[in-house]
């Protein structure tokens, strides 16, 4: 059967996890299944797991089938429509999904890694009372994520965009019993609203100038846009991307989002949702190619974010916070590449990052899981996520440790692991464009500085970030896995490596981390060139890449030099972390001295949250209290309108009541005076 012919088969992709959401969601609402205090029984857990993981596996198989179909022709992609969503005047939006080569890659990552993380969750969340609710939310997220990447028009994409925001909010605040978790969910949602505003404005501008919101049509008719309009649209779209993908200045929600369960952090806040911004830029690459200035902005923001967050990662003690800042930093890397017009490199890093960052998060999850059990075993009340409370875990959980070391070397950029190739693709891409003479982006200017300078700047920042990344990741690994355990022997007895349901996804991701880089090898390396991803994505990305960057080329000698520098940076970072850090002298969290100086600034994320509280939320809260609450609500609405009108009526009726005293004499007086008044009126007029 030719799947491409039976039109809405693409819709099955999001429909499968959506069905899982409906089933598990309905189960989680049954009185007997609802969140209680006790863990869910094994039978119920099996039902939920089979549904939750089953739909994901089915979606993955379907995605593979469709992508194979795509590879055998169907250059326009496999589209499926469920009819018209809205038609008003010139606006007509169809419920159309399209699986093309770009969205195919994303769909594979989402369903593939999604399946692994669902599987992992069956072990990680086993003791949780909200098991069914958790899987319902996770399925819901995947359904919306697939709508996001497959949406053929911006409104449909926006449905997914908002939907993943909702699922993210629900999962960050999954343990809403604690205010901090619920607050983190709200923070993520509100911060994303700022970005969504930009995305909406971008969409409005597109509709105003092109009269369509279908992505293929926008790209086909982009020549109708003037340069200035294109720049404005791209910048507004990028604001949306910065919100969703946690770039400066909208990144503050992502570290807090770690309040959710760890597999959620792996799936949503590392591998898939946060890469939606990168995806959108690559998807709209033809538009960004029209505006080198907007592209430079994307690149510079990405570069600054990369180093900004990486430095914070140096001083975080919460194992998930380190990984969160690392994610922000690596997303910055992707935006650097996307801004420079290296769309393939951006997608390459997106894919490999999904592999090794999911592995790191799931590894961290199994560490937290084990620490939790150990502390529980010993009846000790301590933070299971704090690196200072760990140490020497490598001996107790060798599988997790080995796989996390692999992921660490991958993210640090050690060959021949996945991260090395994708990072190298980005850095050489930047350098090639910077030294190119025919790249429009190198000739454009931003703030009076030529593009080539900005490109070299991004390259340098990328290199420094690679070094810092190697340092903070090695630091995490050394503090967690080497040396001696710092929380006491009793706790250590309770620590065991991950159970099988958690170990399998770790192993699978480990394999992908080892092999993922071979999607794309530069020609100068042995076994190269391999250009699977470049060829695969060429129908989507080749034209915009040429339009923005020409055909940049580096001499082989230069390329060897760049690769050497990158490896040296990674190696230096790892060595520095090994030489300079002293895990043996580390005190546990409760006994640790307060940070001072620059360390205090980094540990507190440059006090950005404090500054936002002072400058933005504080005044808004104070103003709301003084004006809206005390002034308008208590004063005007309550005081004047509600109470005031009652008081007025009461006094008027009191006067009336006094007139009706029931004393005949009083009435006589009233009649007499009234007659007198009438007499006066009629005679004196």
């Amino acid at each position, binding site marked *: 059967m030719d799947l491409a012919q039976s039109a809405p088969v693409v819709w099955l992709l999001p429909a499968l996890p959506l069905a899982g959401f409906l089933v598990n969601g309905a189960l989680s609402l049954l009185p007997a299944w609802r969140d209680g205090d006790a863990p869910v029984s094994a039978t119920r857990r099996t039902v939920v797991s089979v549904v939750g993981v089953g739909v994901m596996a089915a979606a993955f198989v379907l995605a593979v089938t469709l992508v194979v179909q795509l590879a055998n022709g169907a250059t326009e992609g496999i589209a499926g429509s469920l009819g018209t969503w809205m038609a008003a005047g010139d606006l007509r939006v169809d419920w159309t999904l399209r699986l093309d080569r770009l969205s195919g890659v994303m769909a594979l990552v989402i369903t593939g890694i999604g399946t692994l993380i669902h599987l992992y969750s069956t072990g990680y969340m086993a003791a949780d009372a909200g098991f069914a609710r958790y899987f319902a939310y996770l399925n819901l997220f995947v359904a919306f994520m697939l709508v996001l990447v497959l949406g053929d028009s911006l409104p449909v994409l926006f449905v997914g965009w908002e939907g993943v925001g909702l699922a993210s909010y629900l999962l960050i605040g999954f343990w809403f019993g604690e205010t901090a978790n619920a607050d983190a969910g709200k923070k993520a949602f509100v911060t994303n609203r700022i970005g969504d505003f930009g995305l909406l404005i971008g969409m409005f501008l597109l509709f105003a100038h092109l009269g369509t919101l279908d992505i293929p049509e926008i790209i086909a008719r982009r020549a109708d846009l003037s340069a200035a309009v294109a720049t404005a649209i791209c910048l507004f779209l990028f604001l949306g991307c910065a919100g969703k993908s946690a770039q400066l200045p909208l990144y503050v929600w992502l570290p807090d989002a770690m309040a959710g369960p760890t597999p959620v952090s792996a799936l949503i806040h590392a591998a898939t949702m946060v890469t939606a911004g990168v995806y959108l830029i690559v998807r709209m690459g033809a538009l960004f190619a029209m505006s080198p200035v907007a592209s430079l902005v994307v690149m510079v923001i990405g570069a600054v974010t990369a180093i900004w967050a990486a430095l914070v990662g140096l001083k975080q003690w919460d194992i998930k916070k380190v990984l969160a800042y690392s994610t922000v930093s690596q997303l910055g890397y992707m935006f650097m590449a996307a801004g420079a017009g290296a769309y393939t490199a951006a997608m390459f890093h997106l894919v490999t990052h999904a592999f090794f960052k999911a592995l790191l998060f799931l590894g961290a999850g199994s560490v937290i899981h084990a620490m939790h059990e150990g502390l529980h075993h010993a009846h000790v009340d301590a933070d299971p996520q704090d690196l200072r409370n760990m140490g020497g875990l490598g001996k107790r959980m060798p599988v997790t440790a080995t796989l996390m070391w692999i992921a660490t070397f991958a993210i640090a950029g050690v060959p021949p692991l996945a991260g090395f190739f994708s990072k190298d693709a980005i850095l050489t891409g930047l350098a090639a464009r910077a030294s190119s003479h025919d790249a429009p982006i190198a000739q454009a200017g931003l703030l009076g500085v030529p593009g080539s300078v900005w490109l070299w700047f991004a390259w340098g920042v990328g290199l420094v970030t690679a070094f810092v990344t190697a340092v903070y990741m090695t630091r995490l690994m050394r503090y967690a896995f080497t040396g001696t355990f710092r929380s006491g022997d009793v706790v250590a007895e309770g620590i065991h490596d991950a159970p099988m349901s958690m170990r399998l996804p770790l192993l699978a991701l480990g394999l992908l981390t080892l092999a993922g880089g071979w999607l794309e090898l530069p020609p100068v390396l042995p076994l190269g060139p391999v250009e699977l991803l470049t060829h695969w994505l060429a129908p989507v990305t080749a034209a915009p890449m040429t339009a923005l960057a020409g055909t940049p080329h580096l001499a082989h000698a230069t390329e060897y030099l760049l690769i050497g520098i990158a490896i040296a940076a990674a190696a230096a970072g790892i060595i520095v972390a090994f030489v300079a850090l002293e895990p043996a002298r580390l005190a546990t969290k409760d006994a640790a001295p307060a940070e001072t100086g620059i360390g205090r600034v980094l540990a507190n994320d440059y006090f950005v949250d404090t500054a936002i509280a002072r400058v933005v939320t504080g005044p808004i809260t104070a103003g709301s209290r003084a004006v809206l609450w005390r002034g308008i609500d208590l004063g005007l609405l309550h005081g004047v309108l509600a109470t005031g009108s009652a008081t007025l009526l009461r006094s008027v009726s009191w006067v009336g009541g006094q007139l009706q*005293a029931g004393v005949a004499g009083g009435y006589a007086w009233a009649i007499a005076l009234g007659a007198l008044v009438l007499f006066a009126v009629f005679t004196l007029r």
Partner: protein
Amino acid sequence: MIREALIVSAILFSIGVAGVLVHRNALLLFMCVELMLNAVNLTLVAFSRLHGTSGQVFVVLVMTVAAAEAAIGLAIVIGVFRHYRTVDMGRIRLLRG
């Protein structure tokens, strides 16, 4: 001539009104009301000099009604007195709504 009659009638009426307003005793009120009626009668008689006898017909009518009213009114006063042991109108507040 008519002018003086009207002045007298106005004075009598005002005395009646003032009495009604000032007094509380039901009998006194009653007498004041009669005074007002008779002041009006005087006016009617005075005007009948100008406009023919219809004014005097009215006077007879008013006197008849006043007589009937006096009978009923006094009966009510007696009824009130029997019930409340007083005819002080300030203390009878049955009109209160």
